[in-house]
């Protein structure tokens, strides 16, 4: 098990390296001179001189070649220093940590929503394959998959906040604030997970051990809950790890729409402001979270499937 985790850690490092490198490159090639943008943000547009811009360029090390910039940043990052925001001078890390709980809250509630919908619906669909229930829920899933998140978000705002006035339009606060964003994120995810649950369940229901369980005179309920579900969950759990990445990805848009003060919104704001340090830090942070979640999922996965657990021990 230990070697398994170590191996995963190495892999994790490579993934993170790759992700940050990509961000660096992309940021470099986006149009607009970062030094100028930063200068504008700091001193205002009106009395901005070329010297100010150049000064900032030197000050922030933006004149060095790209790989030098990257290595310098990486070196700091490894020592836990993500630098300071180029805009307001606050340390990046503390800024992220302030925003982090909001994102986690949103992600967790969204996942919960997704699973609460997906697993029961998936199971029912599978056990009544080709029935009306199945067809309707699969149609719903199809819809959920193909509908863009932001659009669904806007629709929900229109309906529940503007028309019905049940929930606040946007912002951060008590329980009522999280419902709409979580629903928006959760349903999209639920759509994919439902389909997965259904097909995984169908696959499992075809297996011989299900027939064995039926043969033993167990009721359909026990057969499903005790013999089929645990097996069907194995692929679902793996995918949940990946789903988490999608939640983070979706959070960027959803947080912006709902003015949810999480990392997603922080990232979007930083991109507008060309706040390099903040973007790099944010991406790094998100990547680390993503990889850690996947690791946790993989470990729990091996506990769900004894066949893998023992291979790990060997």
């Amino acid at each position, binding site marked *: 098990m230990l070697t398994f985790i170590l191996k995963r850690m190495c892999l994790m490092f490579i993934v993170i390296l790759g992700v940050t490198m990509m961000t660096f490159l992309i940021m470099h090639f986006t149009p607009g001179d970062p030094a100028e943008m930063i200068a504008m943000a700091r001193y205002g547009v009106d009395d901005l001189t070329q010297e100010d811009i150049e000064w900032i360029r030197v000050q922030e090390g933006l004149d060095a070649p790209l790989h030098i910039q990257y290595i310098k940043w990486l070196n700091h990052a490894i020592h836990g220093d993500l630098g300071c925001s180029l805009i307001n001078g606050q340390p990046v890390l503390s800024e992220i940590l302030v925003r982090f709980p909001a994102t986690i809250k949103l992600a967790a509630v969204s996942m919960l929503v997704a699973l609460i919908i997906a697993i029961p619906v998936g199971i029912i669909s599978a*056990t*009544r*394959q*080709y*029935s009306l229930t*199945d*067809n309707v829920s*699969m*149609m719903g899933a199809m819809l959920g998959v193909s509908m863009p998140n932001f659009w669904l978000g806007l629709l929900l705002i229109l309906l529940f906040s503007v028309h019905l006035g049940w929930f606040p339009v946007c912002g951060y606060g008590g329980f009522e604030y999280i419902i709409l964003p979580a629903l928006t994120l959760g349903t999209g995810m639920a759509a994919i997970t439902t*389909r997965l649950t*259904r*097909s995984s369940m*169908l*696959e499992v*229901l075809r*297996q*011989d*051990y299900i*027939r*064995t*369980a*039926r*043969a*033993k*005179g*167990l*009721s*359909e309920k*026990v057969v499903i809950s*005790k*013999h089929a579900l*645990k*097996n069907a969950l*194995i692929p679902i759990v793996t995918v949940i790890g990946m789903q988490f990445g999608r939640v983070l990805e979706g959070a960027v848009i959803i947080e912006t729409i709902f003015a949810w003060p999480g990392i997603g919104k922080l990232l979007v704001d930083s991109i507008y402001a060309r706040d390099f340090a903040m973007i790099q830090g944010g991406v790094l942070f998100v990547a680390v979270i993503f990889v850690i979640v996947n690791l946790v999922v993989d470990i729990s996965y091996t506990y*769900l*499937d*004894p*066949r893998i657990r*023992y291979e790990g021990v060997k």
Partner: protein
Amino acid sequence: MTLKFKDLTVKYTMFDTLKDGGGDININSNTNINTNSKTNTNNNSNSNANTDTNTDTNTITALDNISLEINKGECVAVIGESGSGKSTLVLASMKLLASNALMSGQIFLDDVDISDMTDKEMEQLRWNKISIVFQNYGDVLNPVHRIIDQVAEPLIKNGESRSVALEMSGKMLDHLKIKTGRDVLFPHQISAGERQRVLMAMALITDPDILVLDEPVSSVDAITKSYLAKVIKQQVNAGKAVLLITHDLSFAHLCSDRIAVLYSGMILELLPSQKLLDAPCHPYTRALVRSFPMMERAKDLAGVRGAPPSKISGATRGCIFQQRCTQSIDICSQKQPQAMSIDGSNGDGDGSYVVCHRGGIATMVCVNNISKSYGDIEVLKDISITLDEGEILALVGETGSGKTTLAYLTAGTIKPDGGKIVFRGQEVGTIDKKEFFRTVGIIYQSPKDSISHRFTVLEAIAEPLRIHGLFDDSSVQRIKDALNEVQLPDEDYFMQKYPHELSGGELQRVAIARALILEPDLLIADESTSFLDPSVQAKILKLLLDLQNNRGISMLFVMHDIGVARKVSDRIAVLHNGMIVENGPSHRVISNPQHFYTKLLIDASKGNEIE
């Protein structure tokens, strides 16, 4: 309790593979096929009435009109090749057939017809009245649960407390020689043989009245096998009805009272176990027995020639075994044979039957009370013996015991002094000579007797064709094929050779080719290998056996070495002082000879000194 199948027919509808593999993508197709077992039940019962046998070409028939009864305290074995429908029968016994199965006919547990029961009703019977040891492949056990939990599950379902259930399961696993400590493992952590026993433990745990075992010993060693046989016999003695499915003949024989032979979804014959092994009635069973390796049998394995017929419903009209049968007659391809009671008594016998137009393996040659003297010497005294269609009979005896005389009598080349020889219902003397020699081929003791020294190889083999006016343009090719068949070169240089230019082994093979060129149904080989050196002898015997198996001809081997006879024959008859002193299945004659002379022969062939 008894388990009874009545006119059980199971067909599988064939999925469109594209649709089947589509998983969750095809939402709206396939609406007519139910995967839900509850709806399936209704589906089955509805289709009972109107399953037409011949019109539905997109179904395959896995079981065709099976009727079988397993009584209390009895073990009935069903043997058959892979794909013959054995597992389908097992699943049907508990109504667990796949969703694409259409079932008709009835299944009775005692007098209760379960064929129309819903799953809910079946739940009460399953594992309480009847349980199954599933065929051990893939994931018959749930991979994510510990084996002991899976064994205990039916008990817990019946209201037993968890701790008691686990304790009982532990004991049961112990009984089946799964060591304590291993019972908490997961299925993938134990060996296939252990899994087999776990399945058995699981079936026995609720002590049901009926046990259905699907290949319960396919993955265990011989010692465990005999232990499991003991376990099964205990169950039978305790009054259980046991249906044992296996392809292991000796295991079937060991455990069961009766054996049914399943072929391509039909039962071809039902016999008491001992009889089935010693004297099977159906040609298929004989072929099966021949293909099965058994400790006591020395004869080489033969295999069943050809392949099973198509299973597409309605594809075969006549006897399903017809393409592979060695004794089929005209009617076999036209009409399905009906079950024929074997002991002649209709109904009140032991229930044995065979499904064959000819009433099972037919007698080809019947030698009745033959005697023959040369001058004052009485060579054969009142001899009676039979040779079945497709059978290999070895006639063994010391030199001068009259073997060759008997062979020549059978071949019709000499006439008996008394008694008669009947070949396929006609007395040999009265059969048209030409016709008779087309169906009977002879290989003489010395190839010089069969082949004139003036003939080339080509001419020698062509001669029988010429005699019967069958020589035509295609004959040379036919001769080449025949040479190939006996593993001789078919080049011109070889075909132009004269006998004295050939080695003994080659010449004998030419003689065989000559004897076989007319495709006889009976081949008589008189000491045809005895003068050859062992390696050539082995080759030629192997060749003859292969030919016998492929063509399904009957053979009469005359030989003096009982050691060789046991390797090649189904039956051995021992000739001594002009009388047949022993006549039985080869393995029986060898392992348990009755007559002192046979014992003597066996001893001699073992190289022991004879007093």
